[in-house]
């Protein structure tokens, strides 16, 4: 086992009824990398995230996270091993406050048991306070501390995406999967997002896989790209290599190319 590998997919396939979403996909992500996962709509990018996080069980093939086979494990187990993600269609706890969204991500950290919780022991309040302080640090990091008490569902699009990233970071992941984080953002917000991605990559020692259609963001953050089309990998390499790869151009521009 090469201990520098964060994530490996080995011949993974997944279909839904008759639709082959992923076919015999193999890819690797080394520790510390930022890898871009790109491809046309319906190529199977989100399905890759769903397979890695245990939302779906692969039909065949192996998914290895830090040397351990995790394919088919339940999501909460995979998350506890150090994988966090954001969703293409933002899934915040909309009715709860911005702060509570991050607090929930820290749910495994308070050090008290059920008995102490029911008895309302002093240490429960102390631990909860510690968690709130920690949650505020994450909000600070993404620039949301002045909105801590706001209902998460009331956040504008760009900020909601940042809250989702804060919530994922609070899980203390080794591998972060970002599913189209720039969708719906304006150019200024995308520039900020680029800074944020590079900053958390460095500060948290993260490995990141980024699904994104905004090529400016991909080029600015990902030294290596993997291109999917119809559930298979059609190319892999640096942005420059990918931009001139005939198969990629064909996938994006159609048969007429």
């Amino acid at each position: 086992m090469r201990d520098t590998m964060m994530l490996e997919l080995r011949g993974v396939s997944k279909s839904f009824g008759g639709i082959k979403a992923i076919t015999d996909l193999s890819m690797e992500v080394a520790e510390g990398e930022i890898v871009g996962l790109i491809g046309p709509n319906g190529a199977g990018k989100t399905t890759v995230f769903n397979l890695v996080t245990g939302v779906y069980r692969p039909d065949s093939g192996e998914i290895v996270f830090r040397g351990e086979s995790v394919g088919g494990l339940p999501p909460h187990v995979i998350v506890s091993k150090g994988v966090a993600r954001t969703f293409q269609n933002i899934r915040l706890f909309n009715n709860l406050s911005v702060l509570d969204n991050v607090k929930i991500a820290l749910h495994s950290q308070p050090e008290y048991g059920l008995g102490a919780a029911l008895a309302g022991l002093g240490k429960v309040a102390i631990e909860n306070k510690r968690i709130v302080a920690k949650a505020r640090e994450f909000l600070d990091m993404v620039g949301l501390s002045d909105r801590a008490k706001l209902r998460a569902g009331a956040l504008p699009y760009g900020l909601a995406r940042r809250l989702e990233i804060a919530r994922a970071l609070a899980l203390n992941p080794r591998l972060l999967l970002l599913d189209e984080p720039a969708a719906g953002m304006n150019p200024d917000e995308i520039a900020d997002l680029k800074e944020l991605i590079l900053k958390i990559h460095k500060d948290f020692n993260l490995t990141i896989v980024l699904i994104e259609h905004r090529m400016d963001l991909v080029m600015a953050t990902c030294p290596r790209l993997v291109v999917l089309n119809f559930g298979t990998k059609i190319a892999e390499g640096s942005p420059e290599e990918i931009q001139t790869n005939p198969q990629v151009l064909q996938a994006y521009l159609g048969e007429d190319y």
Partner: protein
Amino acid sequence: MGYALGVLTLSCIQGIAALGLAIFTGFTGQFSLGHAAFMGIGAYTAALLTYFAGVPFVIAVVAGALAATVISLVIGVPTLKAKLRSDYFAIAIMGFGEAVRVILENLQITQGARGLPGITRYTNLPVALLALAIMAWLARNFILSKYGWRAIAVREDPVAAEMMGIDLFRTKLLSLGASAFFSGVAGGLLAHYLMFIQPVMFTNVQSTQLIAAVVAGGIGSLTGPVLAAAIFIIIPELLRVANMWRLVIYGLMLILIMVFRPAGLMGYHELSLEWLRGLGRRNRRLTTNA
């Protein structure tokens, strides 16, 4: 006077059961039309213990609540595990409620459908109030702890909750066990207040009344369901309606609450002085605008 105290005592007991279901439905987002069965298990266990074995009242009530909890876990393990079908549990628990009634009606020791008379009266208004206060305090502590955060996350979005590393199954199971414990306590108190219990007291009608209290009281609130449970006991008593009209009255009250307060009496809020002041302010604002 004695009659009024009796109605209040029953309101407190029903409030305890409503607190339990508030944890399961109001805070964890899981639906149940069978929680009366857990009241029944608590009532019969506690009553049989004091009646036949002379077990002290408090111990008997706790034992009844524990029995309800254990049985709720036995039901919960297979049904809550069915990950993709959250309705499994809702359907299974209805069947379970019926099964409990049939068993109680056919056991020798419970004296069947005729019911169990001659239970000593240990529950009175002070006892019921004290029990309600203790149980409300426990429920509050639970909700404010990390266990409560997990439950709320599961209610708000199970998929996102799982991605926060929350074990859906364990979270739901814990809430179920807790809620069954509350129902069991309510049952034990009820048996030792009425001095007579009968399987028919713990059927779908009572389950419906509990879920109605939680929904009308407000999802995400503990005090709301207690308040609503009391209202659902007190108003029919005030109106002195015949039994057959009670369900009609419940339905009517539910509709009125849903029309005028769609989130329930106290949806996402707790009854407090602060909240009442806020309510006053909101109403003033409404009237000045109008």
